[in-house]
């Protein structure tokens, strides 16, 4: 099972800055293991962020996003104490959702 | 392999009493070097091509270790002569190879680690420590810049011999130099050293542009 994300959501003026670290291999599918076998591709394909039920950000990724991905984005309309929810799904059907409170 | 190559005179110097005196002050005297060597002997294990024999110091290493890399001048002189005597120049007297091959060797930092396969060829490691061709911006600064080496020092036979022997055995010129003895230890073969000489001394080499 995938590990939790590390999410920071901070209100600066009227903008919420969200910074996320995700635990994921982001395997490209082109590398070989020690025995010479190709390691199958395993990477996050979609990320979406919601605030009060609205999607405030979404991303589509290829395998060239660095391992243990980092993502930063900013949106307006959030208040301290609100929750921001982040979900990723990968090409093997794994999925993870975590949330953070805006500080 | 390395030990067997130590010139006899080196061993004789090692046995001389002056060098065996500890450096530490008398009142807090404790032979930490000896304790360190004993600890190292306990704590290392052979792996891949890196055997425990590598922990045995050869003459030059032992002298440099004992003196903090500053042996007395007369010892330096004698041992540098020994090291110089170890240099084997090519039988045909040809010291220049192909600078393009030299550049490849200079880029290559592989060889002699426990993850490296036994056998040759290994790299020259040159860019790890030296600026060489202006086309390679990722270079180290442990050693001096070699850019424009030939242009500054000339292209004659004397300087070719100097470069060849310096790569073969840097300790012939500076006993406790940080530079490995690539020819002496058998890391680089005759033809490879020629290529590196050409990298520095071929007027066509980017080094001299």
């Amino acid at each position: 099972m995938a590990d939790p994300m590390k999410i920071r959501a901070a209100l600066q003026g009227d903008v919420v800055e969200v910074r996320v670290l995700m635990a994921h291999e982001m395997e490209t599918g082109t590398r070989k293991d020690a025995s010479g076998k190709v390691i199958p591709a395993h990477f996050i394909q979609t990320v979406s962020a919601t605030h009060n039920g609205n999607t405030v950000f979404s991303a589509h990724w290829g395998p060239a996003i660095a391992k243990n991905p980092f993502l930063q984005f900013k949106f307006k309309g959030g208040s301290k104490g609100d929750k921001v929810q982040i979900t990723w799904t990968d090409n093997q059907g794994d999925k993870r959702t975590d949330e953070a409170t805006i500080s | 392999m390395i030990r067997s190559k130590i010139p006899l005179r080196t061993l004789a110097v090692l046995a001389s009493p002056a060098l065996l005196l500890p450096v530490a002050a008398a009142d807090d005297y404790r032979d930490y070097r000896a304790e360190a060597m004993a600890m190292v002997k306990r704590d290392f294990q052979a792996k891949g091509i890196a055997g425990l024999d590598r922990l045995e110091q050869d003459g030059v290493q032992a002298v440099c270790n004992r003196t903090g890399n500053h042996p007395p001048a007369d010892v330096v002189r004698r041992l540098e002569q020994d090291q110089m005597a170890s240099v084997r120049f090519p039988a045909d007297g040809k010291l220049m190879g192909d600078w393009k091959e030299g550049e490849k060797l200079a880029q290559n930092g592989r060889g002699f680690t426990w993850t490296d396969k036994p056998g040759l060829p290994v790299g020259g490691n040159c860019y790890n420590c030296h600026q060489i061709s202006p086309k390679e911006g990722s270079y180290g600064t442990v050693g001096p810049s070699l850019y424009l080496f030939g242009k500054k020092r000339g292209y004659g036979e004397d300087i070719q011999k100097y470069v060849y022997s310096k790569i073969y055995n840097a300790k012939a010129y500076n006993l406790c130099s940080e530079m490995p003895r690539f020819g002496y230890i058998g890391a680089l073969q005759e033809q490879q050293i020629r290529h590196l000489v050409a990298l520095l001394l071929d007027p066509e080499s980017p080094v001299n542009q």
Partner: protein
Amino acid sequence: MRARFILAATAGIALAMPVLAQTGASADFQKFRDVMEEDNPAELFEARGEAYWKTPSGPKHASLEQCDLGLGPGVVAGAYVQMPRYFADVDKVMDAESRVVHCMVTLQGLTYEAVTRQPFSNQSGTPAHVNVVTYVAGQSRNMPIAVPQRHPKEREMYQIGKEIFNFRAGPYDFACATCHGTDGKRIRMQDLPNLTRPEGAIKAVQGWPGYRMTGGLMLTSQWRMNDCFRQQRFPEPKYLSDTVTAILTYQAVNAKGQIYRGPGIKR
């Protein structure tokens, strides 16, 4: 950089170039290293380590919450910047990693062999003790290095570490000091901290445990020492051996008073 080079060469001051080029690239690396440090994937491993620390496991079904890292059972905050140190229960100096492994064996009832079967992170995974060490290190963030030198064995470790640091051997005649004994040097583009001085030593101390961009692995000081000896063309130092502790003691004591900002992020 190349444009600058041609300019300088034309002006006849080619000798000044290495310095210029070095400053430019190092500054650029540092700028983006700072960006990475703010959101260092090492935090993901800290979180795993914290969970392991607090969750009962092993044959004795115990957590590590009673582990004594030198400041008393269970005290994690500030412990890392005071290690390696002498532990009376084993009558020896241990680094953080040795101590964590010791706690997993004594508190959780795991065998030493089981814990250390895979000492370092690799593509197949990150061992639990590596996560725990990362967590422990993170709990000393922004604290000054204060490795004790009170016990005779702590002082002895420092002195022996210093000797090993300067010990030249192997086919290339390398010592640790060959690369890490003077200021302002680099290998290729990587700066080589001078570990004999506080400002340099802290770079090594806070670099590991560190998240290594190459391979994206969480690696510890024990790994760093292992790989340094590999690059030094030495044979392999045994995992958690006194030799490694001695060198870690030497560099940590040299970093005395410097603020620890790890876990690190490294090339």
